[in-house]
Each structure stands twice: as C-alpha cells, then as structure tokens.
C-alpha cells in the first residue's frame, strides 16, 4: 500500500520530466533523496496508520462495545472524536514555526508535570488494571503521561539544543533534562504503576541524549543502571515476574496455563488470520475472548482480520516512519530539529516495538498501546500532536521549506497538510512549480546537506 502511495508521487515526478515513465529504480531513488520526501513519508505513513487504526478500532471494539453499552459504535465514535481533535492539533502544529515549539518547551513540561502529579489528587481515577495514570476531568478520562511524552521530547530537544557545545559534560547534559524534569516525571509515572510508559520515557531521554552527542561511555553506565532498575521493578511485582516467566519460560501450552491467556489468545488470533486473514470484521477473538482487542492487542486483531498483509503493513509503515524520521535527523541543519526528530522517532518506534513484541510473544506483555492505531483518546491526541511536530520539523528542512512553502493559498496549504491519502489531492496547482523545486535538489546537493 505504501508503495502505491509513493508511486503516485513518482508518477507526478515522471510527468515533470515528461519523458521517462514512472517506476524505475532511478526515479524512486531520486524522489526519495528529495528534501520533501520526509515530509510526505511522515504524512502518508501517519495518515495510513491513523486511518487503519480507526477502522480496526471500530471492528475490534464493536462486540465489546455492544455488550457494555448496547451500541457497537460507542468506542469508535469516541475514538473518531479524538482523532478529529488530534488531526486539528497536528495541522496547527505542523504549521507552527519551530521557534514557537521551542517557546512551548518550558510551559509544556511544567504542564505535564502538573497533570502527572494531579493523578495523585482526588482528580485521579482509581486504579484501572493496576495502573493509576488516569485523570477524570469533566466526565472524560485523560492519561497525562501520554502528553508527558511529547512534552519531554519538545523540552529535551529545546534544552539540549542550546547546550550542544557543552554536551560532552555530563552534568550539562543532565541538568535540567534529567535532573529534575526527567526523574520527577518518570518517578510520578512509575508511582502510578505504569511501567510501560516509564520505559518509553526512559527511551525518549536516552534517544535525545544519544542524538545530542553525549559520549557513548555514559550510555553503557546508565544503561546498566537502567537495566538494574527495570529488573528491580520487575522483581518487585509478582505480576511482572509472571509475565516474564510467560515470555521466556515456554510454558504456554494452552490458554488455561496461568498468565498465558492473553499471549496464547493473541497467537490464536494471528493464527486464525493466517496468510490472508478472515476478512474485515470477521475476527473471532474480539468476541470477548482476547482482552483489550481494540487497545494493546489491536495488532492481533489486524492480523486476524487482514492476515499477514495487514500485520506486515503495520510493520512496514513504522519502518517507513522510522526512515522518514532518520531522514529528518540526518538532513537537519538545526540542532532542535535533529533532537526533536530523534525523540519522536524513539517514542513512536520504541512504543510500537514494545507493543508489537508483546503481541507476537517476543517480549513480555508490557501493556503499551500501538501509537496512532490503538484506541485511547489521550494516546491518539498526543501521538497526532507528535506527528504535527514531526511535520513541522520536516517542513523546516533545507530545501523543503522552499518546495512546500509559499505555494497556493493558505487554504490549500492547510488542506495539503491534512493527513489524508495523497492521491486524493489535486495535482493541478503543482505541476507549474515543480521544476523549480526539483532543480534545487540534485542528488549531490542533497548528500552534501546530509553531512
């Protein structure tokens, strides 16, 4: 699916040259090297993940939603509403100049800390599946740790960017990102018993510092400490130890074995799907059998209904997203862009991997949602906000600004940045301007920038 979408861009490129047909290795490679490629890759992959997510949330939640509320659409309509909010924020965020993003760094992180702390006030929701990271505001629930992730990325990138010359000094790198912000946020999240989110936060911090250029020796030391910390936290909970046992112990012969229920039923779902899937809406495991079918285990339902093409597409989309992030990081001339893109990449990819690894039995079941796909309002809104930042970063790349900016009306620009499948857009207004942009990005020029 991704290649088709990419192909449509290519076809346009081919028209521009008005000679060679599309779909040659050269033309694909050439387009990928263009400075606008990251922007469109982010746009298309995130749009497809979000779209797939909505469809699958509807399918996976329909049965459970009907049982608990009498309507198959209750969960889905909620999700749709959050998607609309998230997309709006993403559009706004993508158009927001990067200096504004930097300015938001401090307020955002304070807000995040405040909300995270509010979990322990009467506003906090009682334990949900052993997890206390919820706020109840105006009849709706909010998971502040999701917004903590984006806040941490923006804050970390902004702070570290200003310190790029002193980054080799570890205390410069650590204050104030690790001490106190990172530690406090992490502490609050772990206090709320949400190990999964805690791991993502640690990964984001690590990714930021790595991208900032903190000497590798520190990672070895801190990595060891972190591993010990995780081991300590895991050993401190019978539930977590059981999950690790289930993961590594090879004990799950049947769903009746203690602790194996979810793992085995996720495998059942994937196996039921087989090569080509049972068909959209046909999942069996969503009939109350597999817990959290529309949430942490949505990949199992995707695999069940859409088969291997469906589940591999999700992997491929995240791979492309990773590639796009990497391109932003490597093409960026500005330290903030590079760091923020790294942070976002680590966030999305680490979370996706932990989720997918849990579902397919290659990791213990940690319980994080699949970014952009799983149901959950806070997670979706925060992730789409992250997509907005990523698009803003992609737009700021040298060459991209010229290629993307200043064409057409504001309305068209806004429309163009809405995460929607690319072929839907009219190619009309573009053909005229394209040659100018194309000439600016010869392969040689692009490579030079990468360095």
């Amino acid at each position, binding site marked *: 699916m991704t290649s088709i979408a990419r192909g449509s861009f290519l076809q346009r490129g081919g028209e521009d040259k008005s000679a060679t047909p599309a779909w040659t290795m050269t033309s694909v490679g050439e387009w990928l090297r263009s400075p606008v490629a990251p922007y469109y890759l982010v746009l298309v992959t995130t749009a497809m993940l979000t779209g797939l997510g909505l469809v699958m949330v509807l399918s996976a939640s329909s049965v459970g939603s009907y049982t608990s509320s009498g309507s198959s659409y209750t969960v889905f309509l909620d999700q749709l509403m959050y998607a609309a909010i998230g997309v709006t924020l993403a559009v706004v965020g993508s158009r927001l100049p990067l200096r504004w993003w930097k300015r938001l760094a401090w307020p955002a992180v304070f807000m995040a800390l405040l909300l995270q702390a509010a979990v322990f006030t009467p506003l906090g929701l009682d334990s949900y599946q052993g997890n206390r990271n919820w706020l109840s505001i105006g009849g709706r629930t909010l998971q502040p740790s999701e917004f903590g992730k984006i806040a941490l990325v923006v804050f970390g990138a902004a702070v570290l960017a200003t310190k790029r010359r002193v980054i080799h000094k570890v205390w410069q790198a650590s204050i104030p990102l690790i001490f106190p912000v990172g530690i406090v946020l992490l502490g609050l999240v772990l206090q709320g018993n949400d190990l999964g989110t805690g791991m993502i936060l640690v990964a984001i911090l690590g990714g930021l510092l790595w991208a900032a250029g903190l000497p590798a020796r520190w990672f070895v030391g801190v990595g060891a400490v972190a591993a010990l910390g995780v081991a300590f936290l895991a050993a401190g909970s019978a539930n977590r130890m059981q999950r690790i046992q289930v993961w590594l112990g090879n004990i799950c012969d*049947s769903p009746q074995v203690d602790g194996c229920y979810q793992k085995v039923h996720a495998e059942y779902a994937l*196996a039921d799907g087989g090569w080509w899937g049972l068909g959209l809406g046909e999942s*069996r495991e969503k009939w109350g059998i597999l817990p959290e079918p529309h949430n942490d285990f949505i990949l199992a339902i995707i695999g069940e209904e859409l088969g291997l093409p469906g*589940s591999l597409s999700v992997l491929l989309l995240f791979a492309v997203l990773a590639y796009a992030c990497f391109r932003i990081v490597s093409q960026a001339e500005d330290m903030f862009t590079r760091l923020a893109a790294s942070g976002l990449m680590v966030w999305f990819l680490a979370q996706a991997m932990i989720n*997918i690894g849990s579902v397919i039995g290659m990791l213990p079941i940690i319980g994080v949602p699949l970014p952009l796909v799983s149901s959950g309002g806070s997670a979706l809104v925060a992730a789409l906000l992250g997509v907005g930042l990523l698009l803003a970063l992609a737009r700021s790349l040298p060459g991209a600004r010229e290629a993307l900016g200043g064409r057409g009306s504001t309305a068209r620009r806004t429309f163009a940045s809405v995460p929607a499948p690319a072929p839907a857009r009219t190619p009309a207004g573009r053909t005229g301007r394209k040659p100018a942009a194309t000439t600016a990005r010869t392969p040689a020029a692009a490579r030079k920038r990468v360095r």
Partner: protein
Amino acid sequence: MLLLGCFLVLSLFAAQLVRLQGLDAASVSAAALDGRLAVRSIPAERGTITDVNGEPLAISSERRRVVADPTLVVDYTLKDDEGEIVAEGFAAAAQVVSEVTGADRGTLLEKLENPEGDQYAILLPDVSPQTWQELRQRNVRGLSAESFMRRDYPLGEAAAPLLGWVGAGGLPAGGIELVKDQMLTGTPGEAVYEQGRDGEMITTGLYEEEPAQPGEDVRLSIDADLQWYAFDALRTRVKEAGALRGYAVVQEVETGRIVALANYPTFDPAEPSQTSEEMRNAAIEDVYEPGSTAKLITAAAALEEGIVERDTPVEVPVSLPRAGRAFRDVEPHPILHLTFAGVIARSSNMGTILAAEELGDQRLYDWIRRFGLGTPVGHGLPGESAGLVPEPGGTIWSATTPYTMMFGQGLSGSFLQQVGVFQSIANDGVRLTPSFVQGTVDAEGRYTETTVPEGTRVVSEGTAQTLTEIMQQIPATGGTAPLAAVDGYHVAGKTSTADRIDEKTGRYSGVTSSFIGFAPAEDPKYVVGVAVQRPTKVSRFGGVISGPVFASIMRYALQKEGVEPASTPPLTVELEYDPGARAPGEPSGVTLGDIAVKDEGTP
C-alpha cells in the same frame, strides 16, 4: 545506527509474524477453533396427536425459560430516557421483567435473592418466545433464556389418562405418548458454532447445523367432542353416585376403533406434581369381576352349542342348590316361568345356571376364553391386564366356580374385554381388536390410514342376532333398564351389578355397576360401555347408575354421526311363558311347563 537497529528489530518481528500467521498457523488455528467450538442440540418438534378430525389433542410449542445470573444482575442499572439512573441491581431487573411480562415484582425479587444456584435463578419458568424477545430488547444484564418444548393438551384432564403426558425431561409417561413415542419423537438436530467469552454465538464464525427431524403426527380415532362429552357425563355421574371411579368408552362396531375413552377421576397433564398412582388409566388397567354382562357369554355358548333356543322355557326356582351352596337371584321371587330370553333380560342367575349347566366346565371355560377374557385385548396401551379366568381343575378352581362364572363372578377381566364381548355380538359375531390410531402423518405431510384388522369370528351371525333381539328388551320401557333407552333408537344392552372385590382388603365390598350396549340394534354403529365402581349414593344397580350415562353418550354419538332414528316399532320378544300353554312341536297335551328346563339336580 538507530535506523538499522529499528529495521533489524522490525525484520525479526516480521519473521515472527510470518511464523505465527503463516508457517505455524494451521495447528494453532485448529487449537483456537477447538477452544471456541460449542455444540447445541436442536430439539426435534414432537409430533402432534390429533383426534379423528385433525383437532389437536397433544401439541408441542416452543417456550422459553427466563433465567438470571444474580452475580451479573447486581450490576444492572435501569436508566430513564434522560440517562438518569432509576433503579439498580435486583430491584431494577425485577421492575423491567415485571413491566414486560406482568409477573409480580416481589416474587421476582425473591427469586433473585434466593437463587437455585450461585449463578442460576429461574425467574419465569415458562414464557412465549415473543415475550422473551420483548424482554431481551430491554437488555437487562445477566438475563438469559433457555429454550424448551412444552406439550399442551387442549382437552386437559378429559383425555389425560388416554393420551398420557410428556415429563420435564421430554420422556413420555403413559398412554398414546408412550406407545407412539418412537413415531412422535423426531430426531434431534445439532448445531456446531463458535462461541465468545460469554457463550454468545460468534455470528461471523463457523456454523454447521444438522436440522432436527420433526416427529410424525399421530391421528387417533378419538373424537374430541365425544371424548369431552363422555368425560363430562361420566364425571357428573361418578360425583352424584359418590363412587370410587368410573369409565366410559365408545367403540365403533365395524372397525373396533375407540372413539372415546374417559376416566374419572383423572389428572391434569399440565400439573407436574402428581404421583403415578393418580396418573394411571383405570379404564385400561383395572380388572374387576364383570357380573351380569358376562351372562352374554354363557348365553352365546348355550345358543351356539344348541343347548337352548331363544324361547326355551325355563322354570326358575326360589333357590337353586349347587355345589353345596344355595344360589339365588338378586331379588327374591316365587317360581318364575321365563323364556331363555327372559332369563337373560331379567338377569336371572338361577335361570342362567339351569339353561347352561349342560355346557360343562371345559366348554364354558373355552367359550369364555374365546370371547377374549383371560387374554390381553392387544390394543397396545400400557398397563393392560389379561384378567383372570380360572381353568377347570386349576389351583383357583373350586366347586362353585363353574356356576358363579356363568353369571360373571369368580373371574375377572378388564373393561375393554367386556366391551369387546358386546362389540363381537354387535358386529354379527366377529370380534375386532380395539384400536386407537386412525392413521399417521409423516414429516412430508402424507397421511397413512391404519388398516382395520381382520376380525375373529366368535359366534355365528344367527346367535349374534338372537342375542341382539334379547338385549333389545332390556333398555326399553318395561325392561330392566329403562333409563338406558335412547329415544328414537333401538338399543341393545345389558346391565350388571357385580360384587366387587376391594383392592385393599381382597374381600367383596360394594358393587361394580355397569351398562354396556350398542345401537342402533338393526345395524349397530357404536358400542358404549359405562362402568362405575363402588357407588355409594343414588342406587347400586347398573341400570340406574350407568344406564342414564350410557343413554346420554349413545344419544350424543348417534346424533353427532347423523344416524337415522328407527322408523319401526321396537322388536318385542316373549320373556315369560304360560306353563299351561301347549308346547309347539310337541304331541298334544304336552305343555310348556312340561318341557321347561327345571332344577333336576346337579347333572
């Protein structure tokens, strides 16, 4: 490096997905399916039992039992249109169920609070599928329904002993339900389906159904109207007479088919809590001493063997000493001059002995057996007894046995055996096995009529005719049972007032008062039998107790069938003779008194 790491991990994941979804999928998927599969039996609809006109006598309908899981109902909340919570838990569920079904809210609440099991409470044992659909739409948490088939008996207690009933487990108990069970029971089907966590069917999942084969319908020879009428008439009489119980039967003479078979007291097939004692079919299962109706057998034997003729004069003494015992008639009388017809019509015990004692033990026994006593009738209904006819020289044979057997005491038989004697005579001497089944309707709706069995000739047409002539004198004005007469028709019949052996003590106590007869006498259509056990009020004589019931049922049957009333005056036969009159065919001077059969001591 970070990117390469990502790609590496994602490639590993992809490989795992290919393993899970592709390479290893088949066996895992089979295990998954196995865990979800459930089997539900589809009950086969039991065939309908109808009367001869197709009116249902026993019919199955699908019903629902509403059950609740109280552990789930506790969490139920009832909201109004604005979403405000109106009631919660048991109270809310009871309110909704009460609104939909009209059941008492307090009772429902109590059932929820005192459930049969931890997660099982029967709220409504029997509602229609429509009611359940309405209730289901209210979406009350924890409520579900079990499907079952209910057997309805439109005639209720009027036909209950005959039809039997189907118990809670779907097993037949007694009557036609038991006898025709194999035919009525279809083959249950089976549905294999995938079920979700709460046992609900996964609609998109596998579903294989082997449909149930409904049972065949059975059409009885019973006429529902007549059955009800007979039951009602009998019930009234048994109550009036303060009797133990009674039976009534209507049988078609030429086919042997039973058109009505009523018992009273009876039972309500819809009432599940009854003892088997209450639910027996007494008309089929009871065995009693027939009394005077059995004189017909003696008379037929004597006529067939050429010992007597219809008008043979018999001098009936005041008392008749035989086997060391003085036999008398029911009412004391001086010496009577009765023809043989008169002996039977007046039901004289002594006359019968005098006329037939020449038969001898063995011939009498053979004739009794030939009429079907001592052998099960073979109609197939459960619980039938052969009765007991003492064999000459057997263990229960005594010196008085041959004499008492002539007038129907000292031997026992079932109601239908005795009715069978009358059917044989009414049918020109050919006995037919009584049957209840007119035909069957198979699953495709094809009706197959049951063939009428070949009969057995018991007596000659002439003997049958003579006996009919004699019996016409009984239910007539001036006869011994005027109350059994049916206006407009010529009826032949016989009363009986037999000493009855008490079932508990084994001694004689009370009587069995019966009347069995057939009409129209010229071309008999129906045999009707009525027997009342141990009447305590009104009278003890069969003609008085059972005669009117006989007449009432017979009249209804004949009129319902549209049988033409008789156009000729009733046949009269001389019952008495003048002992001084000249004996026909004898030398002059020989009077009837001279040639009359008299007590000349034990032959």
